[in-house]
């Protein structure tokens, strides 16, 4: 269709940019490795085992994680914004992130309170993942149930924020009663980190993420009709309850698991859809969804490259970088266009 053609070029350009960012991301780090060595390690064979270790077991999974995180959070933010008819919606504002951290807090910090079975398994990453996903799913479900009673979209946002406060309060109470060791584990999770995933964990994250992405593809049509408002969407034959549920499941799979594996990542879920709308000038989800996917991955790779502080031994918390880099971008876009696209 003629309307999609002009976007295809931009999408392909973004795809190329993504590949470029991927290689730049891999070639930057605390140890500087010549480009030729990186290509030899990736595509050929190299005898240098420490090189191989740095690239294959550290930088490569980190780059993949960054792409999953950026695209997954971006898409979940996009779905939230359309479902809740609110440009401020996003995994963080609607309490999904707080739900996930509440789940993790209950497992890590509450282990001493609920001794027994939990104590045995609390250290495994899988428990964290399940707890975080369940936590985010429950919060989102509650927000949604409340949102069917309250028609005002602003009220829904405030309710989301209230849930965030409640989770934060429960987390403080739990941390008061927990040991220093448990507290440390929770605090480290809260900093957010892309580099802590093994190939095996990355594989599991990828599978759940793929489910979420496939589900989100199925929501494109309903998201587009929701742009008209719920009554119009219904008159177009859309089963609102079913679509809502699919959107919610997809969002909590994406945002929930990502948060579980890499910790809460601020800003990305809210900002990527806005940056994409400003660049593509459309609300058509058939274009927005792939564009958010690519831009999310690109921006996250860039943020991660900066967080590495190339050629130094320091690594900044990724959570800080996403906001430091991203927020000015959104402000700049809004000021330049003087108009918010939604």
């Amino acid at each position, binding site marked *: 269709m003629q*309307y999609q053609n002009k976007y295809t070029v931009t999408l392909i350009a973004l795809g190329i940019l993504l590949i470029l960012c991927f290689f730049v991301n891999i070639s930057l780090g605390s140890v500087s490795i010549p480009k030729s060595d990186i290509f030899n390690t990736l595509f050929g064979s190299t005898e240098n085992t420490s090189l191989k270790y740095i690239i294959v077991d550290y930088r490569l999974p980190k780059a993949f994680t960054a792409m999953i995180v950026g695209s997954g959070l971006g898409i979940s933010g996009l779905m939230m914004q359309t479902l809740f008819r609110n440009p401020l919606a996003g995994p963080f504002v609607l309490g999904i992130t707080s739900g996930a951290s509440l789940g993790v807090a209950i497992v890590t910090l509450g282990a001493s309170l609920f001794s027994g079975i939990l104590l045995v398994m609390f250290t495994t990453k899988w428990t964290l993942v399940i707890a975080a996903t369940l936590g985010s799913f429950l919060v989102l479900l509650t927000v949604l149930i409340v949102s069917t009673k309250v028609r005002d979209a602003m009220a829904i946002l405030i309710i989301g924020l209230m849930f965030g406060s409640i989770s934060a309060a429960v987390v403080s109470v739990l941390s008061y009663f927990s040991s220093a060791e448990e507290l440390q584990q929770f605090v480290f999770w809260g900093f957010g980190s892309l580099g802590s995933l093994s190939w095996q964990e990355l594989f599991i994250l990828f599978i759940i993420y793929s489910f979420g992405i496939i589900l989100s593809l199925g929501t*494109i*049509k309903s998201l587009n*009709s929701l742009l*008209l*408002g719920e009554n119009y969407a219904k*008159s*177009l*034959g859309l089963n609102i309850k079913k679509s809502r549920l699919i959107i919610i499941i997809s969002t909590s799979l994406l945002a929930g698991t990502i948060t579980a594996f890499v910790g809460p990542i601020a800003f990305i879920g809210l900002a990527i859809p806005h940056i994409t709308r400003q660049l593509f000038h459309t*609300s058509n989800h058939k274009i927005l969804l792939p564009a958010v996917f690519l831009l999310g991955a690109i921006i996250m790779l860039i943020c991660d490259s900066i967080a590495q502080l190339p050629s130094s031994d320091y690594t900044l918390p990724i959570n800080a970088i996403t906001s430091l880099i991203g927020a000015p971008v959104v402000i700049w876009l809004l000021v330049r266009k003087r108009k918010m696209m939604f």
Partner: protein
Amino acid sequence: MEVTNKHIVLNTENLSIGYTSKKEQTIIASDINIKLGQGELVGLVGANGIGKSTLLRTLTKVQDPIKGQVFINSIPLEKQNALDLAKTLSLVLTEKLISKNLTVFELIALGRQPYTNWLGSFSKTDIDMVYRAIRLINIESLKDKKCFELSDGQLQKVMIARALSQDTDLIILDEPTTHLDMYHKAYILKLLQKLAKETNKTILFSSHEIDLAIQLCDKMIVMTESQVVSDEPCNLISNGHFENLFPKDLIAFDEKTGSFRVKK
């Protein structure tokens, strides 16, 4: 009333409308028996708060009737699922669009959703139907504009085009002329008349433009506190139904001109 063999698109049987809350039922209007034939332009008029919206909501399955039944193409409304209904009934509502950041073409193309696959890809028929709707409403020049660039009158035309592209036997519009100036009120209603004739679709709209509706509609539904009557405008005038439409202290219906006059 003349006897016709027109295909009946929408009819109601002893319909009572209103709200059911936990404690009680509030009946707004009862014994509504209306019949809308194919290709008819029908205007629904009544004072504010008389229940026009409730009637439209009941006819469009947004809310359930208290008593009686609604039939579309002789099939009871409750037996039609959302998707089937979307292929026989399209709507133009008063509510604002969530996003105006779609092009006019994209917006009209959303009307094809009941026919497209899970990804919403368009077939050649879909594209043809969209262009047909654009031609019928005569908005070729707006096709590539964004919805936020349109005036209220243009946007209303686009929304009607969207309903047309849905290719349904029945189009129901809720107050399509509010917020429009006098010229555009007449323009939109005249457009609806043309569409009903040319496409043979049944078009039902609620409106406060009683004088315009009297001039343009094939049939009108008049809602008053005591009853809901539907007939041709001239019969409604001669039977004096418009006189009971409003409280009589301020305005009176003038049969000769078919409009309301302020009492001196």
